[in-house]
């Protein structure tokens, strides 16, 4: 399932995939795969992304 919340949060922060990847110390392809729903990140990476985007885990990754 696509993670549109992550994509919109990144866009709201005016960050490209490349920039977010640099902040989180991962490859751009990893960020792209998470947004597309092709890869389930570990909790460690989820926390890094949340910190970079000033969001909580619930806001970005919790599925109802």
């Amino acid at each position, binding site marked *: 399932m696509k993670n549109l919340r992550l994509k919109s949060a990144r866009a709201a922060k005016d960050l490209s995939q490349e920039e977010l990847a640099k902040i989180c*110390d*991962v*490859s751009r*392809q*990893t960020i792209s795969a998470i947004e597309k729903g092709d890869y389930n*990140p570990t909790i460690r*990476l989820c926390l890094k992304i949340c910190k970079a985007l000033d969001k909580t885990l619930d806001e970005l990754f919790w599925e109802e």
Partner: protein
Amino acid sequence: MTTHILAIIILAGVVAFIIGLVTGKLSKKKAHYDEMQLKIRGEGYKVAFYVTIIMLLIMACLGEMNISLGISLSACMFIICMIGILTFIVYCIVNDAYFMVGENAKGYMTLIMLVVVINASCVVMRLIDGTMFENGQFVFENGGANLLCTLLFGVVLVAVIVKRVLSKESGE
């Protein structure tokens, strides 16, 4: 004379590689594989392992059926190893897990190109000497390893270029 020049080129390549390795470590660059890349590389090892096992089984079956491949056993083993390695590398390239995060990909590709050129020149020299073929048959021991290395690194080079072109076209 030509052999001496070639030996100097190879030595220079090895020295350049070692210097690159040492300076890379000294500069403490944080090139690393991220978690998704590590997962993909793990899958790549698995695929390469199965490909190698299947190739060995095929070779064993051919041996049992007394079907000759026209090359020595050691050459066969070498080729199977190469195919296994190539499977892993191409799998990683296709899934963006070959280059580390923060790695100088261009420098690495230049090194691969250098390896291809050196090995290809060895193959060409063997062909000119006429030692690669004896009585019309391919002699693996005379430059066969160089030929395989040229093919291996050549395929790596082509795979990286194709992957980059496809990624650009898809706008990734």
